[in-house]
């Protein structure tokens, strides 16, 4: 049996086919991701190519409105940029930041969680108190703090260059306790299981036991958590950018587009802000629904 056929027959694939929500959100998520990742290929215009911008095109309404044209299906912004293309490039930034931030907090959370859960005692107490303290602050506040410090500490032009990485760090650092707690809880259960004792009798070191024995057994809940966290990280980034402390206008994300478009909302050019908002909702909602489905599908008690 080929790998594809095996995957098609698996419990997970069966549960996926049975769930219309999962299929629909997978389709939406796939459209968003492909549109974002392949933006340079698929987008009708390059919004960053200043030469192609024409101020005469500014504030064109979407194609379905009386003055709209099919050249810009969902209109243009104040600079004459094609909104659809800007959304695709913006989603690309949002997705990049979301995935990187989630990967960062996943890595940090898994390492610290495994350490706390497996070592126990003082190490566990110290790490978990740090996590507790961090959990008492709203994530966005921590991200604002990190971003503010970076802004003050770095020269302005340098900051604009590395703004993306500052945002990734800010969001990633605020989300690790979630992962660490999950991993710690599972690691504490696993470390007393007899298969871990068996490895210890053989004389396998703690680091190796954590990575080869404990980690594979705590991956299931992590996968779910990471998927759900991806949506939240994208929202966090959009929030930061909307507040003006996230990505600069030279590298706009969906949040930046929404903020910029917001200025024109009351003068009637609603499409500049509404369409990036719709794209953000579609992306986050589909990813979250997928995460919800995954959580149920991997929960043996709900089968």
């Amino acid at each position, binding site marked *: 049996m080929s790998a594809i056929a095996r995957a098609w027959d698996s419990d997970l694939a069966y549960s996926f086919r049975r769930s219309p929500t999962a299929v629909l959100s997978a389709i939406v998520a796939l459209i968003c991701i492909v549109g974002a990742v392949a933006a340079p290929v698929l987008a009708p215009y390059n919004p960053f190519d200043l030469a192609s911008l024409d101020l005469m095109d500014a504030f064109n309404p979407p194609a379905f409105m009386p003055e709209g044209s099919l050249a810009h299906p969902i209109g243009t912004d104040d600079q004459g940029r094609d909104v659809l293309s800007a959304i695709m490039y913006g989603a690309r930034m949002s997705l990049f930041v979301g995935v990187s931030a989630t990967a960062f907090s996943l890595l940090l959370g898994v390492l610290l969680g495994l350490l706390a859960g497996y070592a126990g005692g003082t190490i566990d107490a110290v790490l978990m108190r740090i996590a507790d303290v961090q959990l008492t602050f709203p994530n966005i506040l921590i991200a604002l703090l990190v971003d503010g410090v970076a802004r003050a500490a770095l020269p302005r032009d340098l900051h604009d260059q590395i703004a993306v990485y500052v945002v990734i760090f800010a969001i990633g650092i605020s989300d690790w306790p979630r992962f660490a707690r999950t991993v710690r809880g599972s690691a504490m259960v696993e470390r007393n299981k*007899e*298969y871990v004792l*068996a490895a210890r009798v*053989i*004389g*396998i070191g703690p680091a190796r036991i954590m990575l080869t024995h404990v980690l594979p057994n705590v991956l299931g809940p992590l996968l779910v958590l990471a998927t759900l966290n991806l949506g939240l990280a994208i929202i966090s980034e959009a929030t930061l950018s909307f507040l003006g402390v996230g990505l600069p206008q030279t590298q706009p994300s969906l949040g930046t587009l929404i903020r910029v478009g917001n200025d024109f909302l009351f003068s009637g050019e609603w499409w500049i802000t509404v369409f990036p908002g719709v794209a953000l909702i579609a992306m986050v909602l589909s990813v979250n629904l997928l995460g919800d489905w995954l959580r149920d599908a991997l929960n043996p008690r709900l089968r």
Partner: protein
Amino acid sequence: MSEAKALEVPIFEARDLSRHFDVSKPALQRLLSREGRRTLRAVDGVSFAIPRGTTFSLVGESGCGKSTVARLAVGLYPPSGGAALFEGQELAEARKSVAQRRRMGMIFQDPYASLNPRWRVSDIVAEPLRAFGIAEGAAALREKAGALLRQVGLSPADGGRYPHEFSGGQRQRISIARALSSNPDFLVCDEPTSALDVSVQAQILNLMKGLQRDLGLTYLFISHNLAVVRQVSDRVGVMYLGRIVEAAPAETLFTVPRHPYTRALMEAIPDLDMAGRERQPVAGEVPSPIDPPSGCTFNPRCPLANGRCRAERPALIAARGTPETLVACHAVEEGRDGFEGRAAA
């Protein structure tokens, strides 16, 4: 017994071995409620030796410390007092050397928890091979794992499957194959059959006895099932609240039990000849090992207890009448247990 054998160093020896666990509340709570530290004496001065090629069993109720002895015997816990010796060498020292560590293994109670559910069976069985550098390269490891699986009555093709695809008895065979893979001399078996169906128990016990005969293995066998212990053991120790109260050759223990606790345990074995007869259960509950009774820990439940039993801890010494039996009981030592009367009758 030949002189050479008498002089031989036992493969495993416990000398006054103890393991205490700190079960105190956290420091702050302790300070607020003005309580001291509390220690649980799981194993409290246990001594025994296991000669090469024999099986020594420990029996006792749940919580008497037998599993803790098993874990002490393979170095999963450091002892709090006394010594665990592997061929006369301190166990912690012996385990530092790969060559010595390879020679001991453990079989666990729960065949559902003792195999990593995410690993293929061949990887599980080959883990010690890889860790001890006995075989290297994927092909050599797979071949060796296949041979081990065949040795325990499974098929080499089973190596490609995951643990959840096997029954409890088959999983225990996998567990045994893993323990055997480093070619050990000493195996600690912590209730290896208690999670299995009765019919499967017999298969596993026969497999273990066959392997002992073929490979000259030495077992430390932990169980609460007296019938199983009688079948597999050369010598048996009866544990009560962290201490050995009686140790004797298996047949002697089962035919002439001496300690009041052992006698009560024997009474409790279901027996066809005794069907319908009223049984004398052991009175009361096992006391807490955090706050054990003074003197002989069995005294609150013992029909023969007197003032000395409540004050003075009995030593494990050869019993009057059956010198091969070591027993820790003042009543037996003083001849208050009515043994002579029973033997005459």
